């Protein structure tokens, strides 16, 4: 899951040793406490055009940068689910230089699969249906990783959720002349995700790092990715690592994130002030809360 950190001219082993020294003292490179989340900032672009339905730029204060665009076209529904629409997710990392391109490609495919399966667990694809068995909306989500700094699954999911939530499917015309009414997409529950690092301190137990960055992900002994719903139910739970972790610790980590999920969900759905300034005083169709005039 993790893309290796960009250490510049510093050798990776020395960089990891440096991070280890911080973690032994209960410190992190960016000065955060162990249980603090990085605050996401999401810019929305509602200009549209060229078939684009939504576009978001996800950043946080330590360098993660993701661009998400959503396009919509008409297409036939899947033959096994004729009453559903279609959703495709593609992830690209064009600026990532690596000697092991195969591992990077597998990690990006895994992120695409994670985002798609989590989105369809929270949004009813039957909302994209137009004519049963004949026509449906095909949403094409394209994620471009401009800078990766850990927590790739969570950042990708948040960017897509911010783009798709309350997105307007415009009033359109099918090729046979039928008119399709506009509608807004709704999530029945808003997912929030976090990546939790498991750091083993010798024989004195484990320590959890909330919302790891790339440097921490290269030194921790295990990684959890937890996705919670509105009522703090688990949507996705992915754990990997070098050691077995007790189930009590795993459920404790889930409950610890549940305490912070409401604030994170509010940050993801917060309307973008910069986009409002760019668009003047016009109401943005992708904003969940319309801006007040005057």
């Amino acid at each position, binding site marked *: 899951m993790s893309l290796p950190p960009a250490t510049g001219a510093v050798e990776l082993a020395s960089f990891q040793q440096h991070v280890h020294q911080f973690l032994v003292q209960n410190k992190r490179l960016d000065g955060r406490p162990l249980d603090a989340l990085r605050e996401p900032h999401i810019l929305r672009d509602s200009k549209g055009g060229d078939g684009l339905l939504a576009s978001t730029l996800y950043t946080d204060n330590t360098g993660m940068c993701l661009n998400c665009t959503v396009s919509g076209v008409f297409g036939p529904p899947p033959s096994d689910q004729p009453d559903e629409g279609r959703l*495709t997710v593609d992830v690209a990392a064009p600026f990532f230089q690596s000697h092991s391109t195969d591992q990077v490609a597998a990690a990006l495919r895994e992120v695409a699969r994670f985002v798609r399966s989590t989105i369809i667990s929270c949004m009813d*694809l039957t909302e994209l249906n137009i004519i049963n068995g004949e026509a449906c909306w095909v949403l094409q989500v394209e994620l471009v990783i401009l800078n990766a700094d850990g927590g790739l699954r969570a950042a990708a999911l948040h960017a897509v959720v911010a783009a798709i939530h309350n997105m307007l499917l415009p009033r359109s015309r099918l090729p046979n002349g039928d008119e399709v009414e506009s509608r807004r997409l709704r999530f029945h529950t808003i997912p929030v995700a976090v990546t939790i690092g498991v750091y083993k301190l010798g024989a004195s137990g484990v320590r959890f790092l909330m919302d790891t960055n790339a440097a921490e992900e290269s030194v921790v002994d295990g990684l959890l990715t937890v996705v919670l719903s509105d009522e703090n139910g688990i949507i996705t739970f992915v754990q990997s690592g070098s050691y077995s972790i007790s189930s009590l610790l795993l*459920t404790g980590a889930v409950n610890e994130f549940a305490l912070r999920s409401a604030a994170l969900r509010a940050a993801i759905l917060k309307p973008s002030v910069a986009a409002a300034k760019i668009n003047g005083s016009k109401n943005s169709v992708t904003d969940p809360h319309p801006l007040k005039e005057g």
Partner: protein
Amino acid sequence: MATISRRDGRTAREMRGKELRTSDLSQFDGSAWYSQGLTAVTVAINGPTAARQENYRRCTTCIHVNRAARIPQEGGTGRLIMMERRERERCEDGELKQFLTSLVEAIVCLDRFPRCVLEAHVTVLMDDGALFAVASNAIMCALLDAGVPCRSTIAAVSLIMCNPEASGNEGEPEIFLDPTAVEESTDEVRSYASATFVLTNTGGEAVLASRVQARPRSSAYSRPITPKDLSRMFALAAKAAETLFVFFRNCSMALE
């Protein structure tokens, strides 16, 4: 309350028939063919062998995931959907590759082989549900067959959570072991989540790897997965892993 019945006649806690063959592929250092029911996976291991690479402290792992049968070609408007499903299948292969890579890195003593590469070729012969569990068990048997030193042995268990009532969130959810592909992806047994857990032979409820996913929202029986459900799944997976460890031990006994 109506009892949920499984199409193949199994009870909730019953696993499908298991079959294991090792050392069949003679050109590899170790191989295993493992199946649970109709899900069959072949893993072939090469190495650790010396290789030029920049990691000079530990062995590098290289896992390749292939499928024996890809989605067949389709004409007309279905061709776009077929290409979409193929790309989605490639993403699932990427996820399986990441899962198995982190598993192999956890259990193999990689620091004993600096500047070496351990290569595993995983071929999914047939996928009828519980694919992550079957592939994890297969790669464990292949590593043992190749004589690669491992810290411990593992067993992987797949299960699904089912809604006992036809609607609503009342009632204690039922947990089914070793789901088939139909049980995982349709509403036949009213499932709303699928999970795979990997446990070590040290016992207890310590989990080495986990993967829990709620089913799509458009299914009729979705309900939240609570941390209590997660604990129940951990406990059942620990019990089922003991069955698998007994099976693996009995496979290596000589026939007298």
